C-alpha cells in the first residue's frame, strides 16, 4: 500500500509536475511529498522519485553525457534530495525548481571537476548539440513543446547562451569563447533570455 495520498483522482501514470500553469496543485503535491520525505517516509520518497526522476535524469544526461556517469550523478542527486529534504523552503521556489537546481548544479560541478583532469574537446567540437537534442527528443512532451516554442521566441544569442549553459553545462566564459562574443555580453544575454523564457512559460511568480 502506498503510504502517501497524492490527492483525489491523481493516479498513475505520474503526471508532469508542470502540467498545470504556474504553482498549481502539482507543486503542492510535490511539496507535500517532500515534507514527508523530510521525516524519512520512504513511500513518499518513491512517489516523489516517480514524479521527478525523468527531468532529473534527462538534465543530468544532457550535461554529463556518459551513461555510467549519468546514472551515478542521478543517484547522488536523489540521495541529496533525501538527505536535505528538510531544507526545502517553499518560500524560495517550487519543489521542482529545488530538485532541478540540485540536479543541474551537481551535474555541472561533476563535469567541471572531471574537466580539470581531462579535456572536453569532443564536447566543444559540437556546441549546438544541446539544443538539437532537445528538439529531437521532445515530440511526446507538452512541456517540451512549450519550452521549445518559448526558446524560439528568444534572440539567437539569448537562446544559444541559455541552452549552451543549461544543456551543455558550460560556464558563461566558455560560452563566450564558443560564440566569440565578450563574456559580459553573454552574461546579460543569459539574464535577458531567462527572463523572457520565464515570462513566456508563465513560470515566474
Amino acid at each position, binding site marked *: 500500500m502506498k503510504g502517501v495520498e497524492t490527492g483525489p483522482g491523481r493516479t498513475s501514470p505520474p503526471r*508532469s509536475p*508542470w502540467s498545470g500553469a504556474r504553482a498549481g496543485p502539482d507543486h503542492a503535491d510535490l511539496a507535500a511529498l517532500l*515534507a514527508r520525505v*523530510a*521525516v*524519512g*517516509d*520512504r513511500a513518499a520518497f518513491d512517489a516523489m*522519485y516517480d514524479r521527478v*526522476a*525523468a*527531468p532529473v*535524469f*534527462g*538534465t543530468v544526461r544532457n550535461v554529463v553525457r556518459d551513461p555510467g556517469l549519468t*546514472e551515478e550523478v542521478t*543517484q547522488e542527486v*536523489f*540521495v541529496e534530495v*533525501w*538527505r*536535505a*529534504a*528538510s531544507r526545502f523552503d517553499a518560500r524560495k*521556489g*517550487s519543489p521542482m*525548481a529545488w*530538485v*532541478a*537546481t540540485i540536479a543541474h*548544479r551537481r551535474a555541472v*560541478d561533476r563535469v*567541471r571537476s572531471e574537466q580539470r583532469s581531462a579535456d572536453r574537446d569532443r564536447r566543444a567540437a559540437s556546441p549546438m548539440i544541446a539544443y538539437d537534442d532537445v528538439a529531437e*527528443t521532445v515530440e511526446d*512532451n507538452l*512541456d*517540451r513543446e*512549450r*519550452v521549445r516554442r518559448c526558446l524560439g521566441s528568444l534572440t539567437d544569442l539569448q537562446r544559444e547562451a*541559455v541552452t549552451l*549553459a*543549461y544543456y551543455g553545462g558550460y*560556464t*558563461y566564459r566558455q*560560452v563566450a569563447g564558443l560564440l566569440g562574443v565578450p*563574456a*559580459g555580453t*553573454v*552574461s*546579460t*544575454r*543569459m*539574464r535577458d533570455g*531567462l*527572463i523572457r*523564457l*520565464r515570462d513566456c*512559460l508563465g*513560470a515566474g*511568480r
Partner: protein
Amino acid sequence: MRIRRPEPHTLAGAYALDALDGPDRARFERHAARCRECTREVTGLREATARLAAAAAVPPPAALKDALRAETARTRQLPPVTRPRPAAARPSARPLGVRRLALALGGAAAVAAVTVGVTASLVPPAGRPSASQEIAKVLTAPDAVKLTAQVRTGGTATIVMSHHDRMLVFAAAGLRRLPAAQHYELWLIGPGRDRAAGRLPAPSHGMTGPVVAADLRSGDRLGLTVEPAGTHRPTTPMILELTL
C-alpha cells in the same frame, strides 16, 4: 582574450544557469546575500530553468530506483535549518510515525535504547524505568511529535515529545564544547518554580544525549542553560527555550 568582470547583478542569469565557475559563483553569492532583489530574481529564473529540465525529461533505467533505495536506507537525513527567535522559539511540530522517530533522532536514540553506556550517564530517579526503556516509550508513543530548534550558542536540538506520557527525549548535535567545570542543564519552566530536567552528558562524536525528561506539566516550556556544578535553578541565561 581580455576578461572583463560584469556587474554582479547582471550575473543573475548565469548564476541561475549554473554558468558561474567557482570564484564567479562565490562572488555572486556574496553580492546576493546583501541584495534581496537579486535573490528574488534568481528564484524566478530558477523556475524557468526548472522548465528547461522538464523539457529534457528522459526516463531513467528502472534499476536506478532499486539502487537508490539501498543508498537512502544508509543515508542519514539532515535536520531542518532553524533560526533563533527573539522570543520563545516556535518550532514546527508534526506528528510522526514510529519509524521516522528513530530517524528523527538520527539513530542516536536507537543506539541509546540498547546501550547501557549512555543510560549510565543519566541519573533516573529511583523507581523509574531505565532511560532506554523511557526513550523507546516516547519514540513509539502514538502522539509523539518532533521539534527542532537552534541553540543560541551553537548547535541544533531535536526533541521528541509525548504529551500523553508527559515525557520528552532531548538530543543535540554540534553543541559548543564546555570547560570541565560546566555542563548543559535542561529545565522545565512552568507556572511554578523551574525544575531541573536533566544534565546533558558530554558529547560523543558531536552528538549529545539522548536524555529523557519526565513529568511534563501543562504550560511547561523547555529551557537549556550552561551551569556550574551543584546548581538547583538556572543561573545563566537560557540558550534555548521552547514552548512545548
